[in-house]
């Protein structure tokens, strides 16, 4: 139930997430606040932090929502402030021009809840984001916050909590999908103290930002989850490891910890029930491998973040050799809901082996980029075409990449796949933290594989040889292919090295690193062959294998392209046809971007 419905007061929510802030949303917030204060009307304005939105509209600029009518405006400008206050806030008139255009329905909708994008989603981990002010603990409490903690402390035994989480079927949302309840039980059964609880908010995956959005937009739900976990396993000390680049997330989490301590949800003798717990934030050092649990713990201890072999579980010997439970941000955010609504309710959502929902960051060449939360088992087609609104521009779908650098590329023929932990593993991809990157025909799959391998070779900690050397050799082969120096036997060689790296690497980074290569070869072998045999890049991405030219039948000689060219490679007379001098062209694409007639074309061939 929407708690704002009970109030007569109107609330104006302004998204102040990083994405919207980049588009001046804070100015809009200040403008709205000032205007409303000047008019001295009984309206409450609150800033809401909602990083690159659950609505997927952040690319359309700042978002303003007016409650309780649930009017949803996107692409708001500072100059719209007066009109919004006068028309919508005071007189309940909707400003048509600012409404969201639902491409699935082909019309504008008053609230984003009426759009296709919203209707297929189910929000558990993202339940409060965009609805509350993360800096205000009362907002969270109003929406049922900390009631799960109260329930646990007053009515449940630690064992009871663990069996509730076990029965819910919650699997860790960090990527591997290890059952959360089992992890907790293993830790609870150890009898050496102290025990530690850790929240992984490192999120090094390129293309994923769900953890960031939860930390920025709803920090208390993470805290509450951690508190419940700590109570269950008998821990008195916790750590939240947050990526250093996420400054707003660090700020909001720090504030949330302070506020929770003020209210007595953290600290000594919480709610008078004899349970004490403290939590500390550790800033990550910017190393992808620190997302791996053992490396993360090494980093918290103030060492270089190298992983260790996991023949002993962290639940037995983790931080400083003590029993430790480590879960990811999204996992923790799910916990309060499971306690409040019960394991039965939770386990009815999702698919057989994967209960509940999963947050994905749907990005790339898709219309509605943003965060989505869907029940597991939903098909890729539903995610990309119903929720995502299909491919942006005129391009055609080519592949979707899931699970970050360790994941794989899934081709069109598998779009009917129901998304959960096991089904993704079966096709060679993985859930990972939940990045979902949609690629269209202008994406070169060989180059994508090269991109991930480059990332991984830089991020490999170098401790074990298969990972350090194997990834590097694979990268060299792929770089050769992208520059037209590929050899026919390279594909087999790549697969052979992949096998070794997978088998022999020490930690998850190396074990999954070959996935992008294996899946692209499996599903897009043609493209590899085109690079090797024909010295041609079908997508027109690999520069050495691509030539830009101006289609003389289309060009009308406006000369815009020449202005945009940084190397003066374009020549011609205004009014006649222009040409590109290939020897000077650096293939930056400025001309293609600027041409209004689409006369600049890319030829995916002719290496010499």
């Amino acid at each position, binding site marked *: 139930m929407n708690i704002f419905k009970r109030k007569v007061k109107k609330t104006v929510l302004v998204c102040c997430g*990083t*994405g919207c*802030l*980049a*588009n001046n949303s804070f100015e809009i917030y200040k403008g709205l606040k000032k205007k409303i204060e000047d008019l001295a009307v009984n309206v409450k304005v609150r800033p809401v932090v909602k*990083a*690159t*939105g659950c609505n997927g509209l*952040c*690319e359309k600029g700042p978002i303003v929502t007016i409650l309780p009518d649930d009017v949803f405006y996107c692409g708001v400008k500072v100059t719209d402030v007066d009109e919004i206050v006068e028309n919508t806030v005071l007189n309940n008139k909707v400003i048509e021009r600012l409404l969201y255009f639902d491409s699935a329905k082909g019309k504008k909708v008053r609230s984003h809840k009426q759009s296709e994008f919203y209707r297929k989603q189910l929000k558990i981990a993202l339940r409060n984001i965009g609805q509350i002010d993360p800096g205000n603990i009362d907002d969270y409490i109003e929406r049922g916050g900390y009631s799960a903690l109260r329930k646990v402390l007053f009515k449940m035994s630690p064992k009871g909590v663990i069996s509730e989480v076990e029965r819910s079927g919650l699997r860790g949302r960090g990527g591997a999908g290890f059952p959360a309840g089992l992890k907790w039980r293993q830790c609870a059964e150890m009898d050496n103290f102290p025990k530690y609880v850790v929240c992984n908010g490192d*999120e*090094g*995956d*390129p*293309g*994923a*930002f769900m953890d*960031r*959005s939860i930390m920025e937009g709803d920090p208390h739900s993470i805290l509450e989850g951690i508190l419940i976990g700590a109570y269950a396993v008998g821990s008195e000390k916790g750590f939240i490891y947050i990526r*250093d*680049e*996420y*400054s707003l997330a660090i700020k909001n989490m720090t504030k949330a910890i302070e506020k929770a301590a003020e209210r007595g949800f953290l600290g000594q003798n919480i709610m008078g029930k004899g349970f004490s717990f403290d939590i500390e934030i*550790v*800033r990550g*050092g*910017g*190393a*992808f491998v620190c997302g791996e649990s053992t490396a993360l713990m090494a980093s*918290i*201890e*103030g*060492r*270089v*973040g190298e992983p260790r072999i996991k023949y002993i579980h962290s639940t037995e010997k983790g931080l400083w050799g003590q029993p430790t439970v480590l879960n990811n941000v999204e996992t923790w955010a799910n916990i309060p809901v499971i306690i409040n609504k019960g394991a039965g309710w939770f386990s009815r959502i999702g698919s057989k082996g994967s209960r509940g929902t999963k947050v994905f*960051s749907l*990005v*790339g*060449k898709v219309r509605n*980029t*943003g965060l989505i939360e869907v029940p597991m088992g939903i098909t890729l087609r539903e995610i990309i075409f119903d929720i995502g609104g299909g491919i942006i521009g005129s391009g055609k779908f080519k592949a979707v990449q899931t699970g*970050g650098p360790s994941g794989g590329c899934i081709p069109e023929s598998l779009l009917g796949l129901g998304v959960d932990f096991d089904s993704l593993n079966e096709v060679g991809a993985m859930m990972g933290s939940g*990045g979902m*990157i949609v690629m269209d025909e202008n*994406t070169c799959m060989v180059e*994508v594989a090269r*991109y*991930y391998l480059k*990332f991984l070779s830089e*991020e490999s*900690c170098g401790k074990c040889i298969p990972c350090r050397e194997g990834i590097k050799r694979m990268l060299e082969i792929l770089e050769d292919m992208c520059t037209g120096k590929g050899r026919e036997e390279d594909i087999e060689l790549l697969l052979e090295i992949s096998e070794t790296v997978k088998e022999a690497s020490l930690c998850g980074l190396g074990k999954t690193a070959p996935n992008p290569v294996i899946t692209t070869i499996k599903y897009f072998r043609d493209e590899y062959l085109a690079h090797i045999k024909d010295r041609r890049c079908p997508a027109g991405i690999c520069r050495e294998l691509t030539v830009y030219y101006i289609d003389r039948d289309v060009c009308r000689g406006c000369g815009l392209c020449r*202005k*945009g060219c*940084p190397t003066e490679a374009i020549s011609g007379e205004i009014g006649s046809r222009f040409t590109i001098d290939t020897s000077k062209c*650096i293939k*930056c*694409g*400025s001309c293609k*971007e*600027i041409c209004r007639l689409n006369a600049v074309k890319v030829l995916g061939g002719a290496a010499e």
Partner: protein
Amino acid sequence: MFYTKTILNKYPKEQRYLLAVLQDIQKKYNYLPRGALIMVQEYFDVPLSKLYSMATFYKALSLKPKGKYIIRVCDGTACHIRGSALIIDEIHRLLNILPGDTTEDGNFSLETVNCLGSCALAPVMVINDKYYGNVTPALVRRILKEYGGVNCEHIQEKG
């Protein structure tokens, strides 16, 4: 090295605060001066080699001085497939620096980062703390001009 002392005084002498201390020093100076590292070594009583191994391992730390404006271009997957490489090329052409370098006048440093979590705005570029979304090569020129980085008259303004 006054600031280093202030930073050190905020933290107890426990090894687990090493990374945080180094990050704070990095924030203050934009790199880790050797003098500061020696002070850290004395304070925590750890070998200097350990500090260097951390400084080279973590991306957030740098042993090379950085410029006044740090340009960070996101090269996360979403930004990558929406053309971050073009942005890097454009900066390279305008300022003559590659990722990891600093301009000779010490004004600009260029870095790539693996994801800023603003994928909806891809490609994204950050200068110090200011975010720029949906960046195009043309926009790069305009933005760098704002920071006094480009004074090439032959580059024409567009749009």
